[in-house]
């Protein structure tokens, strides 16, 4: 991406004055955006800045209220994804747009299926998948069902699916959120390959390190507006961060050394099955002490979700012990564990963490709703619920929220703040925080990180499970690496490098596809 960048060509995509209003939110406010041929263009901004919305408009998932789009200098109307695909524009979404029960090949040909007579030509689908996979160097197994492959592989399928439509513009929405450092490097290599084959790429991200590593130009958005577009070579992290947040940002987590005390939570040889009934947690052991943050690093899908569920009572362990303050609690109900002082920030706030069609107040009281001061016998005291919700909103600086706001209308970061506020407000002994900053903007990340440390220092035990390696490394006092349902290595934070962790995350160097 060195040579091409300084030979500016005519923009292949030209968006002008794009405005999009959602109920209560002006997501895009007269945004301009140009994509040149053969460039990797990073689109950055905090969550809620409107970058995904802008690209979804380009891809035909949303229709803009006003503004124009030109492709190859011709003004076009893009009303549906099919229109976009016809114009050579494809998008890889943050949440994978795959059908889990179908095979890789079926997912890739979906929408443009090869036929033999009236039937689906399966062998040609597989062959086509192989060809694509070879051409772009993205290895996948065409016959495997999507639900059976790893997250990294799913992303390859996503990219292949889009490429199979013969697109020349590829939009990637937060593609690295679920990848290991090694996988991320692989992805960037692939993108470079694509550009060299004539493709243009838009990379939506909020990780500045990646912007600098992978892009030719950067466009920064903030609060629905276009802030500026700069050549990557001519900028640095601090400048981009300032543009994104509108102020100086601290990047280092300030923390004192941990002062661990007695062991609060002890996990011994814990085992649990996944939803399909296959072993997912295969004997996890570790202990968690007061006053420390224990980080669990690992590629997603290695048993983290099931481990968290087993620890919080949402999934019945099939073996092993779980000791809380020395007392066995495995198999206890979520309510019992909560009463014993275990709080839980779930990895997916939309699935477990909130009810998006309910109000902020309803979301803020979950787990406390049956106790004083919110409830008196069977009665839920409305006044106290409201003031409770207000307190959380203020305490955690949840913006744009009133107690009766639907939580689904808040941005991801603000939603996550509600979840954190709720879980921390119980003054827990043990806080299990899974992906606490996923999809959260920079400002909020800072805030959440400092809250976690604050809790540690107040004598709580924090278990941090995150796919963001940098997060695990900067926050944790000790780090365990989970692979294939087991903790395969444990390190003191500070003595380990990202590369080392990455190797263990992939099975202690034994790379398995």
């Amino acid at each position, binding site marked *: 991406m060195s040579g091409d960048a300084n030979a500016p060509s005519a923009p292949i995509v030209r968006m002008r004055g794009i405005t999009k209003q*959602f*109920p*209560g*939110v002006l*997501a895009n406010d007269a945004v301009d955006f140009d994509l040149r041929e053969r460039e990797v263009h990073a689109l950055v901004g905090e*969550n*809620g800045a*409107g970058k*995904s*919305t802008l690209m979804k408009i380009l*891809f035909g*998932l*949303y229709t803009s209220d006003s503004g124009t789009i030109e492709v190859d200098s011709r003004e076009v109307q893009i009303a*549906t*994804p*099919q229109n976009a*695909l016809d114009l050579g524009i494809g*998008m890889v*979404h*943050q*949440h*994978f*747009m*795959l*059908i*889990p*029960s*179908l095979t890789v090949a*079926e997912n890739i040909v*979906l*929408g*443009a*299926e090869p*036929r033999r007579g*009236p*039937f*689906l030509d399966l062998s040609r689908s597989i062959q086509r998948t192989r060809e694509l996979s070879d051409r772009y160097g993205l290895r996948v197994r065409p016959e495997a069902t999507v639900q059976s492959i790893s997250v990294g592989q799913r992303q390859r399928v996503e990219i292949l*699916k889009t490429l199979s*439509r013969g697109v020349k513009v590829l939009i990637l929405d937060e593609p690295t959120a679920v990848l290991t450092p090694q996988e991320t490097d692989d992805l960037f290599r692939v993108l470079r390959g694509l550009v060299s084959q004539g493709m243009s790429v838009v990379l939506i991200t909020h990780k500045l390190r990646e912007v600098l590593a992978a892009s030719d130009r950067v466009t920064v958005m903030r609060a629905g507006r276009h802030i500026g577009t700069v050549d990557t070579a001519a900028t640095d992290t601090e400048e981009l961060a300032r543009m994104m947040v509108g102020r100086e940002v601290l990047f280092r987590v300030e923390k004192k050394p941990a002062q661990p005390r007695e062991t609060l939570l002890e996990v011994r040889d814990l085992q649990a099955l996944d939803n399909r009934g296959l072993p997912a947690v295969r004997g996890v052991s570790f202990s968690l002490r007061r006053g420390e943050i224990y980080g669990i690093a690992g590629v997603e899908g290695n048993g983290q979700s099931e481990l968290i569920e087993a620890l919080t009572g949402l999934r019945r362990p099939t073996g092993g012990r779980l000791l809380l303050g020395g007392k066995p609690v495995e198999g206890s109900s979520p309510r019992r564990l909560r009463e014993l002082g275990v709080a839980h920030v779930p990895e997916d706030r*939309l699935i477990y963490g909130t009810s*998006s069609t309910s109000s902020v107040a309803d979301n803020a009281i979950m787990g406390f709703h049956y106790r004083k001061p919110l409830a008196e016998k069977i009665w839920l005291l409305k006044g106290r619920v409201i003031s409770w919700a207000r307190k959380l909103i203020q305490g955690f600086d949840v913006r744009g929220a009133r107690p009766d706001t639907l939580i*689904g*209308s*808040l*941005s*991801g970061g603000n*939603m996550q703040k509600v979840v954190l506020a709720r879980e921390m407000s119980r003054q827990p002994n043990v806080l299990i925080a899974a992906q606490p900053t996923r*999809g959260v903007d920079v400002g909020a990340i800072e805030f959440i990180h400092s809250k976690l440390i604050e809790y540690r220092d107040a004598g709580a035990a924090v278990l941090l499970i995150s796919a963001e390696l940098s997060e695990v490394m900067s926050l944790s006092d000790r780090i365990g690496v989970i692979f294939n349902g087991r903790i395969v290595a444990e390190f003191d934070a500070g003595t380990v490098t990202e590369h080392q962790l990455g190797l263990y995350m992939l099975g202690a160097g034994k790379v398995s596809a």
Partner: protein
Amino acid sequence: MDEIFGVINAGLFGVSLRLATPILLAAIGGLWTQQAGVLNIALEGMMLSAAFSGAAVTYATGSAWAGLLGGMLASMLLAAVFGLFSIRLKADLVVVGIAINLFAAGATLVLMERFFNTKGNFSPGRRLPNITLGPVRDIPIVGDIIGQQNVLVWVGLALVVIAHVVLYRTPFGLRVRSVGENPEAAETAGIRVGRVQFITVLISGALAGMGGVNLSLGYVSQFSTNMTSGRGFIALAAQTFGNATPIGTALASLFFGFADALAVRLQTRELPSDFVLMIPYLATILALVLVARRRSLRARRQSPSESEKPEAATV
């Protein structure tokens, strides 16, 4: 006990097949919409309108085949209204379904009174032919079961196979399944979700229509007000029970047909009729409990509009 086993013979299976057919046809129709993520509660109304139109067209033209076509068309028109309101205009699926059922019940009466000057019953004068398999009829057991059945019984069985092949072996089937499983993903793959859903609704209309025509032109040769008597709802249950797969749905329909046939036969054995009449329903519940256990179609139940709400949360 002898009473019960006394009625189980090959003929009973033939009757089961006959009793299962109207339900099977409608249920196979319903499974298409279910696969595409649309709960079709309007099967009852579609069947009823087809039963009426089929008989009326047959009366007017003298051809039962024209009646079959007319019945299916009428049912598909209702299906189109169902699709327009539920998919395009995003009205609640269940409410639209109930409205369609109400509409069909009213409209068949209004039209019957207009054209036939009665609100009760009329005979189209003809019916769809039985297919007699000459030599097969003489084979013991097999002959009793399939030796002579109405043409739509065969069509129903053929449709099970066709549905299976189309659903799992054609591009269209792939699209339907993807729309039902993850509409957003299907949409980004360039599939027009609403259109696929609309097509499945039309298919369900055509097949439920066939089921309705089977009643008024196959089973008997007459139309009576409300003659579907809840068979559309039984079909809905069969399709849900069968997990919306063609084979599962067919087995569920046949199971219900068998239980119903058993009940019909047991009645004459001096058993209390009210209890005998509960057999099909209780048997279905029991079978469901034995089979259901882990599986869940809950995700399928949401309205198709759910997927298209702007996600302010992940902007």
